[in-house]
């Protein structure tokens, strides 16, 4: 599953329309979804980010979930033209002075830049920043990396202004247009990182996992024995990609001794 994170509704609208995402009212914040793609609006600044991201993660217990922060950013005049799109390779948190480095494994063709996440909007031209500037990226990275692997977090920013009248001071229509004009690049990126997600195939299928749960229940396995069974099942699956896990040895035992012997026999059979 992929989850776009944006700060503003104006950044989200072109994406919601392009991907035909539908609002899910069961969340207490703006959340849109269709099939394997969703979009979460976190608002301006860091305040709501952790709560909202964790709520999405708790609700969708997916094996692989990719978060992509897509939004606008300010730039010093001369650093970039307005409308340019960047993949972020370094995030500097202005407050904590901590640096974060998103993994850059995808062959994306997007230009790259570092970004500084500031606490308050910058309106003095941003001459002290030789990076892009936003108000969310560092917190999004920090929060996501607590729960998911770092290569599943990425940041795409479109330059919206020269920080001479405050970040996010643009009218909605201008923001809509900036994102709208980069939908092709954004879509290309999302398709590419989806392929990386698709590469991660768990060893055990859902059917295998059901067999393991059934066996655990019938034999009343201890936690240690349960993990032993998982390990043997993985070994079996790697050696026998197409065979099914067999129920014939899974018989309710009459004692712990019998249970232990049954498990031993099952594991020997799986490892054979």
């Amino acid at each position, binding site marked *: 599953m992929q989850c776009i994170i944006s700060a503003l509704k104006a950044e989200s609208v072109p994406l919601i329309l392009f991907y035909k995402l539908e609002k899910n009212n069961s969340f207490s914040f703006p959340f849109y979804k269709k099939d394997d793609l969703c979009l979460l609006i976190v608002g301006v600044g860091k305040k709501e980010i952790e709560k909202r991201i964790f709520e999405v993660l708790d609700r969708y217990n997916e094996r692989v979930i990719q978060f992509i922060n897509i939004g606008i950013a300010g730039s010093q005049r001369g650093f970039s033209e307005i409308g340019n799109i960047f993949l972020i*390779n*370094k995030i500097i948190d202005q407050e904590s002075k901590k*640096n*974060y*480095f998103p*993994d*850059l*494994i*995808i*062959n994306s063709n997007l230009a*790259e830049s*570092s970004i500084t996440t500031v606490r308050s909007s910058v309106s003095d031209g941003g001459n002290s920043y030789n990076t892009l500037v936003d108000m969310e990226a560092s917190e999004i990275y920090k929060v996501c*990396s*607590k729960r*998911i*692997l*770092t*290569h599943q977090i990425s940041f795409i920013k479109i330059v919206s202004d020269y920080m001479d009248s405050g970040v996010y001071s643009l009218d909605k229509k201008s923001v809509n247009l900036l994102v709208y004009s980069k939908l092709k690049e954004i879509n290309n990126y999302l398709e*590419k990182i989806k*392929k*990386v997600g698709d590469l*991660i195939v*768990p*060893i055990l299928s859902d059917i295998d996992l059901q067999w393991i749960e059934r066996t655990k229940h019938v034999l009343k396995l201890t936690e240690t024995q349960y993990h032993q069974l998982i*390990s*043997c099942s*993985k*070994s079996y699956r*790697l*050696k026998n990609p197409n065979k099914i896990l067999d129920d014939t040895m899974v018989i309710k035992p009459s004692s712990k001794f019998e249970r232990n012997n049954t498990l031993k026999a099952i594991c020997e059979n799986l*490892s054979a």
Partner: protein
Amino acid sequence: MKIFQPNFSHIYIENQAKGYPLTKIALQKFSKSKIIEVEHYKDIFNKVGQDFQIQKSSMKLILAKKTEPFLYPASEMVQEFGSPNVFYNTPILNCLYNCDYCFLQGMYSSGNMVIFVNEDDFMDSIKKKMELLDVLVNPMIVSISYNTDILAMENIIPMASRWIEFAKTQKDLIIEIRTKSALFSLINNINPSKNIILSWTLSPEVVAKEYESTSPPFRSRLLSAKAALKKGWPVRLCFDPVILFDGWYDVYNDFFNEVFNEIDPIKVRDVTAGVFRMNKDFYKRIKRREPSSKLFYDNYEVNNGVVTIDKKKRTDSLSKLKELLTNFMPESKISIWGE
């Protein structure tokens, strides 16, 4: 278009690593790579939540300056024919290759590679240590390729050749360069020296294909070792780890015949062998990530913090292995881990 960026598409560089000759070489070699500044290499190399295996699909280079310690006592899992003054150092962290059984995937959270550019500090620490050791009786032995394959990196950054030149100047020092590379040609112009052991890890083709898929094929490594011997280098052959599978004995029997048909065993300095073994914590860390190698789902025992084949199976197989090897060389030239 390929999904992944090519290896070393990005170079992360510490401020304090700038200006060193090795830094200049790396930046020149990868002049098209994007350069990203980092305060400390650990900010990227040790960050939480990395996927070692995914990162191996697009490795990045991190140029850093190492601080002390520059030298470590050798692990008990390394064989060195009973010599007491054995050490290793870490001029590079991580390896260009990605063998299934490698402990590095459990040791490091990152699949990226760190090159420490202050090579003089590493070399000075060896000189200082030699002053404290009784090297006249037992020369100091330093493995410089313990956490990497330094020769495999030679066409990227010529560190192996620089270490060889250093070792030649130190009378009582021996450095071991353990490798799976087929790049001997890159150091073929250097005169051999008794101060350097070039060690090739060799595995039967079937094992190499299954467990060492990113390393050069067995034959290429063998021919590299042969070329080094021909030039007069001290060469060690490492049959390590020997993978025990159904029919392993016959496979290894044929394999040793093939190796020593190509290479004169009398000319080989020595050989080492051992079965799969790994520090318990590294093993656990790898297993948590659900590796796709069968190797991690076999039954092992844990002995003094080391995960390995159970003792009976291990000693049986190692004694058979030793028997095979003694067909080619005296026992004194064979060192086996886990007997």
